[in-house]
């Protein structure tokens, strides 16, 4: 004779619950393994060459098996190329978001744009590079240059910027717009001086994350900018090195000195990206966008 135990779930159900708990925790732990080992190996190996020479010298006249050399030329290139990409992508991205939120109003064009912004997020980076190669280098006949890389990076940045700006503009309370309209302020001034400033910090955060994302892109630069060992300060003329390409170039050499340089390049790149990420989070925390 057995009485039904009503004090709690049956043993089988409890075991299932515990198994699920363990599996879920294991999943999280599994994700930490690559994160920790990536950061650990990059820091450990990168510190070997994290010296003054690395940041003040280029690879000019330094062969793969020679020690020394640095990534000065690559850092210059990355900053210029990503900067130019931002100059192209941010206005277009923010204006598109303004159109979608303030003007589009769920119309046909707005829906099509929204859809293709989503699709654009999924364009493989190498395809963006091939497009610029086909258009800028082949059709228009320009040579390899940093600016070509910037254009391909800007294609990858645009959808991210649009998404971020759109989300932030939607958070701006309508009361603000209406108050401004009621005062007789034209629409464009309302947008420029009321809506955008309100959403400003949020947009900046999104933009910085987008910049951080394209900073590590290698594939499009590979087909549009090309590799060089010398310092080239002019992004509109000739091949220009960038940090991702520097790592790509050095990592494929068999010599340990080259691999060490690649690791330090990776450490530098990750530091840049982490700084941008941290700054973005700080800005986001300093002034949260007004919400209803």
């Amino acid at each position, binding site marked *: 004779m057995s009485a039904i135990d009503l004090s709690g779930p049956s043993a089988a159900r409890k075991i299932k619950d515990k198994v699920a708990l363990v599996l879920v925790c294991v999943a999280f732990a599994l*994700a930490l393994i690559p994160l920790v080992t990536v950061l650990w190996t990059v820091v450990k190996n990168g510190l070997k060459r994290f010296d003054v020479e690395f940041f003040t010298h280029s690879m000019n006249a330094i062969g793969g098996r020679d020690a020394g050399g640095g990534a000065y030329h690559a850092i210059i290139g990355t900053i210029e190329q990503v900067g130019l990409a931002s100059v192209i992508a941010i206005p277009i991205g923010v204006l598109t978001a303004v159109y979608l939120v303030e003007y589009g109003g769920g119309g046909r*064009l707005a829906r099509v744009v929204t859809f293709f912004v989503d699709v654009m997020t999924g*364009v493989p980076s190498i395809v963006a590079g091939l497009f610029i190669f086909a258009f800028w280098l*082949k059709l228009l006949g320009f040579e390899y240059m940093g600016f070509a890389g910037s254009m391909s990076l800007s294609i990858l940045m645009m959808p991210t910027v649009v998404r971020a700006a759109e989300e932030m503009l939607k958070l701006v309370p309508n009361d603000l717009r209406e108050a401004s309209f009621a005062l007789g302020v034209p629409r*464009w001034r309302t947008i420029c001086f009321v809506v955008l400033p309100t959403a400003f910090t949020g947009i900046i955060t999104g933009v910085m994350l987008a910049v951080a994302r394209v900073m590590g892109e290698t594939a499009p630069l590979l087909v549009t900018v090309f590799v060089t060992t010398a310092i080239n300060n002019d992004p509109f003329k000739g091949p220009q090195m960038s940090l991702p390409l520097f790592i790509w170039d050095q*990592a494929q050499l068999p010599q340990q000195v080259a691999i060490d340089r690649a690791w330090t390049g990776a450490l530098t790149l*990750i530091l840049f990206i982490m700084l941008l990420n941290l700054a973005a*989070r700080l800005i986001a925390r300093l002034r949260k966008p007004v919400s209803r």
Partner: protein
Amino acid sequence: MTSETLEQGATGALGGKARKMSTGRLGDRLFGLSAKGSGIVLLAIMAAIAVFLIVKALPALQSDKANFITSQEWNPDASPARFGIAQLAFGTVLSSVLALIIATPIAIGIALFIAFYAPRRLADGLGYVVDLLAAVPSIVYGLWGLQFFVPKMNHVADFLHGHASWIPLFGGDAVGGRCLLTAGIVLAIMILPIISSISREIFLQVPRPNVEAALALGATRWEVIRMAVLPFGRSGMISASMLGLGRALGETIAVALVLGSAAGISLHILKPGGNTFAANIANTFGMAGPNGQSALIASGLVLFVITLLVNMAARAVVARRKEFV
């Protein structure tokens, strides 16, 4: 969805006549036009990508003496040019599917952990930690994969080959670390954050009453997840993993660094070699002649179409879900 309700709020308040309201001033018209123009520029870029890839791919496709779809060779600069995408397509699909099989359960586990198991105060921080995986650039994964992970995978490959070679996937004559399985695992790491962050967002949208109803029936935590959370989030999880698949298909540099360059189609995922669309472009573009570049653009076009289809399908799943909820 928060963004959705907000959007409805914005259009609701500004909808109808207010939308069209314009003072007709020059500044207004200029600003409105430039905003609209930016949207159109975006569309034009997407169209231009398709058009230019097609135009630049055509010369190579016409010169191709082998079957572009079924041939396994890649000699576009030889005369006569002979190349086909069979091997590239195979490697791309197999490595991405492997990545998806590995990443999806883990990513959903992570999302569940952060949404339901982790202490509330830690949840945001843990989410940020997983997002950090997405912040690491692919070139760094490539370097890590080549220098750190491949040597480790050499042992794993030997072990699997030694103990489980009766499974066809693990068979083959020679095994090594620079194989499709390694590429698949590296890709899985790279798509984890996308799948888990989208799934987490979906899980957080599960209606509170559903969860409470399950709890009221005396469900354990796992039963709540199985009865209330997973059915609600199914289409969201599907579209999340398809977005991850799209990312994996197009990933270039990490795969290019990790894979060895032996050619051929083989289901033995431990065999060194294999190639993908993107990795092939990255590895051979610098040395390619004019026809070779054109052929690589043709392969890039195929990749573009495949990722486009996968992404559109993912969006369609999301859109359908919106109608039902």
